């Protein structure tokens, strides 16, 4: 019997930040490649990045912006997709850019407005609401650590800041 292939799937749908202004706005890119399994599974014989994964890419871009604004003290949970509109798809070879602006933020929640560009042309908009969930939330049994912002997400921001000398 073949030994089980042990690896951890990396649930990360942006490749790098290209802009990050604390508490205000951020941009991140995602390069779509034919080597990714999921681009083959959404539409037969028409490889593309499934639009829900563009929403997830936007949510990760926006979520890190929201989390960083309050020093990553709380878990930032995607609570509602207020609006998601796409005019086109991301296909292998395309470079997607997610730009996000922080519309509002307080103790309980944050709202963001995002735009999706493909090779520089706008192809969509995604508006999101995030909830702040602290470890003290009485109604939820949460792990004692911040389970949203692990090393993978924090490294994205750290690497961007190293690159731009911030």
């Amino acid at each position, binding site marked *: 019997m073949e030994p089980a292939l042990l690896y951890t799937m990396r649930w990360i749908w942006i490749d790098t930040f290209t802009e990050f202004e604390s508490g205000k706005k951020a941009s991140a890119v995602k390069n779509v490649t034919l080597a990714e399994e999921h681009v083959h599974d959404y539409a037969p014989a028409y490889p593309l990045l499934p639009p829900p994964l563009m929403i997830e890419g936007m949510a990760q871009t926006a979520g890190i912006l929201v989390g960083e604004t309050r020093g990553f003290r709380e878990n930032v949970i995607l609570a*509602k997709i207020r609006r998601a509109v796409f005019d086109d798809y991301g296909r292998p070879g395309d470079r997607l850019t997610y730009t996000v602006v922080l519309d509002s933020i307080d103790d309980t929640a944050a*709202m963001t407005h995002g735009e999706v560009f493909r090779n520089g042309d706008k192809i969509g908009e995604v508006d999101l*609401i995030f909830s702040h969930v602290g470890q003290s939330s009485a109604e939820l049994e949460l792990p004692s650590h911040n389970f949203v912002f692990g090393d993978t997400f924090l490294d994205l921001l750290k690497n961007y800041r190293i690159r731009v000398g911030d």
Partner: protein
Amino acid sequence: MPATREDVFKQVEEVLVDALGVDEDEVSEDATLQGDLGAESIDFLDIVFRLEKKFSIKIPRGELFPEDIVNNPDYVADGKFTEAGIIRLKEAMPHADFSAFDKAPNVSKMPELFTVRTLTNYIEAKLQAA
């Protein structure tokens, strides 16, 4: 020219259609946000945000949807609003219709105060005060 009641209702309707994904014909003045239109707690934040943008107004937290009353033991006992609680609720929600609620002031009935009419009344008063 000040907005008419009909103008305000139409724009509140647009907000609810966008925020809750309901059809226009579901949004009557009597419709309750939770029971009839399916609003969940996070939707109330969304509705407030959209109303602020649509009408260019600021809605202080808790002004449209009071938050500090239900959990106050002076105002609620055994699932019912106390006399002081009812007074406080009416102060906090002058834009709501309490005629049905007064007959059975239970906490479980509180969502029925949040109707499309309540929202429209609130926005109308807010615009008049501006």
